[in-house]
């Protein structure tokens, strides 16, 4: 009962009073109202919505789509044509389609089945994959579409209705914490004044809540029953993607009221701090602004795949070349010799004339017609194109797809990428980009929800010049620990040589002494109950111990500021213990203050219109007392003011102004006698800031009643003013009272990072990746996070690009441009000058400056500067800008970019980047839907890139190269044979051998390679992130490698073919005198090919599990089995291959000896190549493999060299935690040096030392 009544009471608070001059309540000016009215009914503004009468929207012209959303690419009808079209857009597939068509007209050298079957198989598999992926999309849509919302049916009854069944005109009721199912027109809310709070993080990434307010006219509609008779008509704009505009009017009870964006609740945003709202559906489904804003995700192709196209072109030109040679050769033979070959019975000109017409047709062989040599050669050319088609790896695409699907499956199944908290795991949503993960050079990251949890934690505070909550930063801790570790071996060696120097103090900077030197913080390790938003451990303040502090009054005032100067409200939670409250406020920061002050014994319990009630711990009586404070005024926080104040009077009638704000702003407004703690506080501030904590300074002043009265009249007047000058007046008024403050201290809150984020960023930085932070949040927050993630650090040179005040006020694009250009140029000059020095650069730019910087003529300069900075932070950027930056960076640098984000505001960026990653831990699905990979947490990016990316890149590039090799080696033997058959188009091998080649006999090993190959294990990948650089440098798929592999294929084919014909011809191949005929030679040569290509893949593989062994040796075995089975079939099926193994080649020792010889000889060049490379030009993975091999016996990680190399590999890293620790160590060492020097000086200057050195005994 109590809870219910208090909720009712809370609902009665008039929020509009609380926010005394919030800008969003600015009423429309009459001019705008007029403009809006004029637009209605014009083209583009023709939509009519009959509120609460959805049945009227079932017929034209008011028929609008249902609220059903589909993101699938295909539907049942369009799947076949569209998917087929997609398939045959690939050059290779189109070529094989043509080949298959030709095969129907007896042009082809092969049987029809052997040409059509592989094509159907390949295309079928690819289409199946498309279908499965689309099915998943469909299921996700289904999930969204089947959410429910309370919808009005009739007579004031609301029932649950599926989202997809909503129609325009439906009245819905959305409860707190729910998403809006479509774009709604706000009719009324649970708050009396029709205000509601909306979280739009999914749309624009801004974390603060937006206020929406209904029209006065519809305020009364705040009960279910009211809607039984409700009717209204809305005229408004047509669906469009613009999130921030809305033009329309509503006719309600014979009156027309204009509508503005502040009445429009957008799909994908969430209701917060408001119990419920009523709204009417204006735009549904694909008409909603959020959906209109989303673009269909472009199909992305990886770099390797794009390069693969070029390889296909090369192979294709090779194909055309050999086909030309063949057709030209056949032309020559036909012209010169072939006429004399009587055994061919070629249609001779003379003979044809002799025979009657019916016979002449029968002699007409289009391929060998001496009377039409050119036509014959042309046909031969087409036949050759098909014949040598084995040069084009038809199964390459399908094998790659199979491999990628399997890779994807393995990525999805990785336990290390499973998040226990959200029970979600990594999802590769498309399998196209696995290998692209291994080539990323630039990461563009969103902040809120991606790096941070959007949750504030109270961490530290400095009250009256004393810092609480611990002094040591984590960087100090890590640095001192590392230094100790470094010194240990060093110290050891000293021990042995000279015992006297043992007193040398490596522990000088150890944790204990460090904290002892710099303050007397008592770190209590006892873990209390974890309180959300409060991560503060200092028993000088907790448990009411603060009453023993020296500056009791300041401490008390400090806590009062914390408990009173805010806009929050307490929230009764039935489940919660009654003495602890939870709070809700506009920003999570304020919530953390309220929780902290409650922990300190200043519980904020109630707020009424003009009263705030605190339950305070009274030091004198040692009891909790309830005190009431009259809220006189509230001076709102805004980004330009950067401060907020409340004016309260306590029970004794004393009037206080309690103020909190950015430290610089507060420090400017201090009274002369209020600066007692300024120096100490400033010191603490900088240490907090370095840790990435957000700081706010607290101050107060007492106001005399008279002064207050006179000020209040001015302020009230200002508030009553209507018009553009209102804000200025208010600003001036508050300026006059917020002065002569007395500084109390500062608080530091942590924008809580997600688990493992700094470590992950550190590893990514070590892997050589650049990380850009793009956030919609304000600059201070962004910089704090930059520090917290070690993207920025104190010794880093920072450039801040922003519009200077005059340029901004002038509002002249030209001025602004010049301003920015100047800043960029000066910064760039500095970068150029100091590039060789160690200190890296950081760039911070805000949205407005960015807008200028990304314009055509400035953008190159800007990008040049940005690329040269170690880290870049862009704040206050709109979703569109995020996408724009991503595109420009991608274009300008040509490097692979990865964008990661969690909200709908990141969708543009995610789609634009080469790889888009969505965070799936959050509620919104938009980013995930648009992404290529979804992660439950940012930290999984580390393993995804450094392990899986690296592996997949290696696997796919090895695989593609091998494929090229394999097909060149096989395809060219066909060509060589043509030279011996007078280019007649005869094939050395049986049709089925050839069909089996790509489908069965060589496909499994290459798939095993593509799925399971590992150059080094995952542990080692993570320990040596620098290995990742192989991908961005593209060492495994460079043109020299590609050409090398093609040459290797040429060599192998030559060896195989020549050895076979020289050995098998013309003498007997067996003891019984039988000679090798075309079938024996074909089977033998083919055996050699199967052995060679399968042994070649064994040479490539560096990681043999039983699967690889089975697939490689099994494929070879399979060939013999196939030959046996095929040969055992009746001759009707097997043709000339009948019994070829059993009777022809099997019993001949020559056959087996050729196989051994050819395999060794054809692999020898490659083997010598890798031997030379390994021995004299080893790559990093080779060395690491060797290191691992050598130290397998011991535990690798304890090995000294291992640790040293790990350290060395990180040396060039410029950002991240390790780099920061390194920098710290450097500065510590400098201090140490100085200290040693001073000790040395003091010793050498001491009289004793002098006497010793000058003594004659020495």
């Amino acid at each position: 009962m109590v809870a219910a009544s208090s909720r009712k009471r809370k609902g009665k608070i008039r929020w509009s009073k609380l926010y005394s001059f919030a800008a969003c309540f600015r009423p429309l000016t009459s001019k705008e109202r007029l403009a809006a009215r004029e637009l209605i009914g014009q083209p583009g503004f023709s939509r009519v919505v009959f509120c609460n009468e959805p049945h009227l929207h079932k017929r034209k012209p008011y028929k609008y789509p249902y609220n059903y959303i589909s993101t699938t690419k295909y539907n049942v009808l369009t799947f076949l044509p569209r998917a087929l079209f997609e398939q045959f857009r690939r050059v290779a597939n189109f070529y094989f389609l043509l080949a298959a068509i030709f095969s129907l007209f007896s042009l082809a050298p092969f049987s029809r089945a052997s040409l059509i079957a592989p094509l159907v198989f390949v295309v079928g598999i690819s289409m199946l994959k498309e279908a499965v992926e689309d099915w998943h999309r469909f299921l996700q849509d289904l999930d969204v579409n089947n959410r429910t919302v309370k919808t009005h049916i009739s007579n004031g009854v609301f029932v649950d209705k599926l989202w997809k069944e909503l129609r325009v005109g439906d009245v819905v009721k959305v409860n707190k914490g729910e998403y809006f199912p479509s774009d709604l027109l706000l009719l009324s809310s649970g708050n009396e004044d029709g205000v509601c709070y909306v979280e739009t993080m999914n749309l624009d990434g801004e974390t603060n809540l937006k206020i929406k307010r209904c029209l006065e006219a519809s305020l009364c509609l705040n009960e279910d029953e009211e809607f039984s008779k409700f009717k209204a008509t809305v005229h408004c704009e047509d669906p469009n993607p613009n999130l921030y505009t809305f033009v329309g009017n509503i006719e309600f009870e014979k009156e027309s009221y204009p509508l503005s964006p502040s009445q429009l609740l957008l799909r994908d945003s969430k209701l917060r701090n408001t119990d419920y709202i009523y709204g009417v559906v204006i735009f549904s489904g694909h008409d909603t602004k959020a959906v209109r804003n989303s673009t269909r995700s472009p199909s992305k192709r990886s770099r390797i795949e794009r390069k693969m196209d070029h390889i296909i072109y090369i192979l294709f030109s090779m194909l055309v070349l050999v086909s030309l040679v063949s057709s030209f050769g056949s032309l020559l033979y036909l012209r010169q010799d072939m006429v004399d070959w009587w055994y061919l019975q070629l249609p001779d000109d003379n003979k044809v004339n002799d025979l009657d017409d019916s016979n002449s047709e029968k002699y007409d062989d289009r391929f060998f017609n001496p009377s039409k040599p050119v036509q014959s050669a042309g046909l031969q050319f087409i036949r050759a194109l098909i014949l040598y088609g084995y040069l084009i790896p038809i199964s390459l695409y399908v094998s790659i797809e199979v491999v990628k699907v399997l890779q994807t499956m393995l990525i999805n199944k990785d336990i290390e990428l499973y998040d226990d908290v959200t029970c979600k795991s990594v999802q590769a949503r498309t399998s196209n980009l696995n290998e692209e993960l291994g080539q990323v050079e630039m990461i563009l990251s969103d902040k809120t929800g991606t790096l941070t949890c959007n949750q504030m934690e109270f961490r530290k505070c400095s009250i009256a010049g004393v810092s609480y909550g611990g002094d040591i930063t984590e960087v100090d801790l890590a640095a001192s620990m590392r230094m100790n570790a470094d010194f240990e071996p060093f110290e050891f060696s000293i021990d042995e040589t000279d015992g006297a120097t043992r007193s040398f103090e490596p522990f000088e900077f150890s944790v204990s002494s460090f904290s002892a030197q710099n303050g007397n913080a008592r770190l209590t390790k006892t873990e209390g109950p974890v309180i959300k938003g409060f991560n503060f451990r200092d028993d000088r303040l907790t448990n009411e111990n603060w009453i023993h502090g020296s500056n009791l009054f300041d401490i008390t005032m400090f806590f009062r500021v914390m408990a009173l100067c805010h806009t929050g409200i307490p929230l009764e939670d039935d489940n919660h213990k009654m003495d602890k409250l939870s709070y809700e406020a506009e920003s999570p920061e304020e919530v953390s203050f309220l929780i902290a002050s409650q922990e300190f014994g200043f519980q904020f319990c109630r707020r009424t219109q003009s009263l705030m009630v605190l339950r305070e711990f009274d030091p004198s009586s040692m009891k909790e007392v309830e005190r009431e404070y009259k809220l006189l005024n509230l001076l709102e926080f805004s980004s330009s003011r950067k401060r907020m104040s409340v004016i309260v009077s306590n029970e004794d009638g004393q009037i206080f102004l309690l103020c909190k704000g950015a430290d610089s702003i507060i420090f400017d407004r201090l009274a002369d006698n209020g600066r007692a703690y300024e120096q100490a506080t400033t010191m603490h501030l900088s240490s907090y800031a370095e840790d990435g904590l957000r700081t706010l300074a607290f101050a107060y002043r007492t106001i005399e009643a008279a002064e207050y009265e006179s000020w209040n009249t001015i302020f009230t007047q200002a508030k009553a003013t209507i018009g553009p000058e209102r804000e200025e007046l208010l600003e001036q008024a508050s300026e006059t009272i917020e002065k002569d403050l007395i500084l109390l201290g500062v608080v530091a809150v942590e924008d809580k990072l997600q688990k493992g984020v700094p470590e992950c960023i550190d590893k990514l930085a070590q892997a050589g990746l650049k990380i850009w932070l793009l956030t919609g949040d304000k600059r201070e927050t962004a910089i704090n996070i930059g520090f917290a993630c070690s993207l920025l650090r104190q010794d880093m040179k920072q450039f801040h690009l922003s519009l200077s005040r005059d340029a901004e006020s002038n509002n002249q694009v030209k001025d602004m441009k010049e301003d920015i250009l100047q800043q960029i140029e000066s910064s760039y000059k500095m970068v150029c000058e100091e590039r060789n020095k160690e200190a890296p650069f950081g760039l911070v730019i805000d949205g407005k400056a960015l807008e200028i910087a990304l314009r055509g003529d400035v953008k190159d300069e800007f990008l040049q500067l940005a690329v040269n900075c170690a880290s870049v932070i862009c704040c206050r950027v709109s979703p569109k800008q995020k996408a724009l930056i991503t595109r420009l960076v991608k274009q300008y640098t040509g490097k692979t970019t990865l964008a990661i984000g969690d909200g709908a505001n990141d969708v543009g960026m995610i789609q634009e980047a080469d790889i888009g990653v969505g965070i799936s831990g959050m509620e919104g699905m938009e980013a995930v839907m648009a992404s290529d990979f979804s992660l439950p947490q940012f930290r999984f990016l580390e393993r995804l890139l450094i392990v899986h990316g690296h592996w997949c890149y290696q696997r796919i590039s090895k695989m593609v190269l091998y494929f090229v090799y394999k097909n060149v080696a096989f395809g060219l033997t066909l060509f060589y044979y043509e030279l011996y058959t007078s280019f007649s188009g005869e094939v050395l091998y049986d049709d089925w051998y050839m069909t089996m080649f790509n489908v069965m006999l060589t496909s499994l090993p290459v798939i095993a390679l593509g799925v399971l190959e590992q150059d080094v294990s995952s542990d080692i990948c993570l320990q040596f992130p620098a290995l990742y650089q192989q991908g961005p440098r593209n060492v495994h798929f460079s043109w020299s490698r590609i050409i090398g592999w093609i040459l290797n294929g040429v060599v192998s084919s030559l060896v195989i073919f020549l050895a076979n014909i020289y050995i098998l011809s013309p003498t007997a191949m067996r003891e019984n005198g039988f000679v090798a005929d075309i079938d024996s030679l074909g089977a033998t040569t083919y055996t050699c090919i199967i052995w060679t290509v399968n042994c070649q893949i064994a040479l490539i593989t560096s990681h043999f599990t039983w699967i690889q062994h089975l697939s490689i040796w099994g494929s070879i075995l399979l060939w013999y089995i196939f030959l046996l089975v095929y040969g055992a079939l009746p001759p009707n099926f097997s043709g000339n291959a009948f019994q070829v193994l059993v009777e022809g080649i099997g019993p001949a020792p020559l056959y087996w000896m050729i196989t051994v010889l050819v395999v060794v000889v054809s692999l020898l060049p490659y083997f010598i190549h890798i031997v030379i490379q390994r021995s004299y030009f080893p790559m990093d993975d080779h060395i690491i493999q060797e290191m691992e091999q050598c130290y397998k016996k011991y535990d690798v990680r304890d090995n000294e060299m291992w640790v040293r190399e790990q350290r060395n590999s990180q040396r060039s890293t410029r950002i991240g935690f390790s780099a920061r620790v390194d920098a710290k160590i450097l500065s510590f060492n400098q201090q140490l040096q100085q200290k040693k020097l001073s000790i040395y000086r003091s010793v050498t200057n001491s009289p004793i030392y002098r006497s010793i050195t000058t003594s004659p005994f020495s």
Partner: protein
Amino acid sequence: MTDTDRGTQRDRHSAFSLFTQQSLPACKPVLTPEWVIMTFLFIGFIFIPVGLVTLRASHSVVEIVERYDIGCVPEPFRIDKVSYIQDDSIPKNCSLSFKVPKYMKAPIYIYYQLDNYYQNHRRYVKSRSDKQLLHGQNEHGISSCQPVEVNNDRPIIPCGLIAWSLFNDTFTFIRNRAELKVNRKNIAWKSDRGHKFGKNVYPFNFQNGTLIGGGKLNPTIPLSDQEDLIVWMRTSALPSFRKLYGRIEKDLDVDDVVVVHLMNNYNTYSFGGKKKLVLSTTSWLGGKNDFLGLAYVFIGSSSVTIAVVFTLLHLLSPRHYEDTSYLPWN
């Protein structure tokens, strides 16, 4: 470390999870100098002996090759050999004689060798009907036999260019005035005789057309016993080929003089092909062919050389394995 610890907590034992976690036990060979040297030496030590044995086998084979296409045309006709061979009125018999250079142990295989004869021409190879060869007249799938499938509206058995161009030179061998018996049985593959050429299929309407190609067939003998045809129908892979004619099952001594009476019927003159008669013994490896042995010896000795060179290089300027100075960051 913690990563692996966490992994072990879940069941790592099942083979499936080992697979999905990509941690199947694997062998990771690393190419160390020792391995390289061992490999090359191994190849060398296997290949050289094998090569030598092979060469020996090849050298044990005695081979006599006699070209007779020009010699068998009488002097006056040598200007226009084509008209000589096409003129049926001129007798085509001819004789050759040669001395056996080395002792030849039976069986001695008799081959005829044709050069520049494209039995592998696509038009030629395809011009046959396996169905007809096996099942005879019942089958009508003879369209593949173009252009020799029917004559006077009746199908030809065996049809097709290959059969039509059957080689028809014949040889008889005389040593010391006694005829050497030539065994002409079992010169074709057993499976061909048993399963590809019908026992009840008899030549029919063969070589009756206006154009006469090669040899004629005895219409009373079923195809499965026409071994000459069967051998001829196994088309050769290359334009220069030998085909088995028969076997002499008596040893030939050194300096034995063998006289060959042959019927020089087959026309190779129009396209400049050569005809040779080959007598050869065989070893376990088949005929005389040094290429294989030489290749083995060459590769074997190259491998040994590479091994030696590599060992020297390794000793003179060794790259220490796991030498970290090659790492890019050093």
